[in-house]
């Protein structure tokens, strides 16, 4: 039973969110979509953390997916599913090239190169007429047949992606990821291809981020270069850290909590940043295992009392 508790937890949260879409009115529905997309971003970040790297380029791949979708909708009339697939595909191709080059460096260097990549792409968008320059792209609507159900569709797809990532994590491949984080020389010494595996991990996470970006573009209808700055990675980091990075439930819980709190905190004006900042600082210092760790602790306490 405990072996499947993360699966059950994630599915339970997904069901709760879907119920929110069904009964909660249109704003709650939108909120659910944001939570789902944020949860995917945080899960993607966590996925690369399995090999021990902090992937600041995740915002860039999210942006690549969104811009690919925006471009297709504005310039070519392709079917929705194909658009989604192409957006994920572009993120995949770019991530293989980018990862294949940069995963040779580790730790802070990898982090900062991802940061530079994100910022470079952002400036690149502003200079591209075809991508709408600084104003970005508008009119990115889901097709008519899906419009009424788009919130369900996005939520379900997002959670399928999250469950897919969890599935990979629990597979032998996922164990090699964690082993690489633990001690990559040992993994290499017994004949596992470390670099190749790292690129695979990075490419999977980036494809998922690209798909999330595409869903985001359809959900928001409008995108602009500043949407995909490095702050996006920092926010994803906040979801992950508050939720707890040890458990696959963490990013989902963190995203749900922080997106709701942020929606509430909007009325605080510019103080939203203070809130996010405080949330990160406090959880790093006092809740190093995040919400998921806290839940675990409570459960264990209850068991020991009972």
């Amino acid at each position: 039973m405990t072996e499947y508790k993360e699966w059950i937890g994630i599915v339970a949260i997904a069901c709760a969110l879907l119920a929110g879409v069904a009964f909660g009115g249109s704003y709650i529905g939108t909120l659910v979509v944001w939570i789902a997309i944020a949860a995917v971003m945080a899960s993607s970040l966590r996925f690369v953390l399995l090999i021990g790297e902090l992937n600041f380029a995740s915002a860039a791949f999210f942006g690549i997916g969104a811009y690919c979708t925006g471009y297709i909708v504005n310039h070519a009339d392709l079917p929705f599913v194909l658009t989604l697939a192409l957006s994920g595909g572009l993120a995949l191709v770019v991530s293989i090239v980018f990862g294949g080059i940069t995963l040779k460096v580790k730790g802070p260097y990898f982090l900062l190169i991802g940061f530079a990549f994100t910022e470079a792409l952002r400036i690149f968008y502003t200079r591209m007429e075809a991508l709408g320059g600084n104003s970005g792209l508008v009119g990115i609507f889901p097709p008519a047949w899906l419009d009424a159900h788009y919130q369900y569709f996005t939520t379900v797809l997002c959670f399928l992606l999250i469950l897919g990532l969890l599935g990979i994590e629990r597979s032998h491949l996922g164990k090699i990821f964690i082993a690489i984080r633990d001690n990559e020389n040992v993994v290499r010494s017994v004949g596992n291809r470390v670099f190749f595996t790292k690129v695979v991990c990075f490419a999977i996470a980036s494809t998922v981020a690209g798909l999330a970006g595409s869903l985001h573009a359809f959900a928001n209808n409008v995108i602009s270069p500043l949407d995909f700055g490095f702050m996006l990675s920092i926010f994803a980091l906040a979801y992950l850290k508050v939720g707890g990075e040890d458990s696959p439930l963490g990013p989902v819980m963190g995203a749900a909590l922080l997106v709701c709190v942020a929606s509430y905190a909007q009325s605080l004006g510019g103080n939203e940043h203070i809130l996010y900042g405080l949330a990160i600082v406090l959880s790093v210092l006092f809740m190093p295992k995040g919400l998921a760790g806290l839940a675990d602790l409570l459960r264990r306490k209850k068991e020991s009392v009972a």
Partner: protein
Amino acid sequence: MTDGDILLSGRNLSKQFKGLRAVAGVDIDIRRGEIVGLIGPNGAGKSTMFNLLSGFLPPTTGQLFIAGANMTGATPERISQQGLVRTFQHGSYLPSMTVRDNVLIGSLGGMRNARVSRAEQNKGIDEAIALFGLSNHWNNVAKNLSHGLQRLLSMAIAFAARPSLICLDEPLTGLNQTEVTGTLQVYRRLKTDYGMSILLVEHNMRAVMNICDRIYVLHHGEIICTGTPDEVKNSDAVLKAYLGEAHGI
């Protein structure tokens, strides 16, 4: 001895670091089913030698053949696929994972190109765990194990890859006498039951003399003596090299 018996063969291997010649023109041969010791005073170049053989460092000059294939300059992954698996002196395990998952990683590396059923794979993992006496700890997280068990685990990981040559970097350090005896027993089984060769870098001279078929003595990056334990013990060159060292033979 015929060429067919030779599993690993290094010819004129050298490694030059900025200004320092860590290994200088070493020839080394290891036959199938042979336990070979590599000893020498601190700083003799043993670790560099290990890195050269396992592909973690490319040699400056010289050539490396494993099971007949030229492995000069190959990656550690490639060399491991060719049958050579090594352990590391420190922390040669995966601290956050369970004993079983540690061994699983070893078996995954070993079976990269083979199609093996889940059941067979599990059997192999259990066998490795049992062989190194870790059966009671299979679900414990590696970082919580005692030092001695961690040493055994690092050998179990290497074994699970089913290499033909297993290179162990000071595997007995920190083990108590019973553990040492038990481990040496396992080495004999690796040789007899599984036909594996072992290359052993070890400071515990009693153990080395006890278990090894042949010994290479490295000093200042060069092989100063090679032969059976008895031959090495009686070599003048070896005695001279070790003089001044805190521990003699």
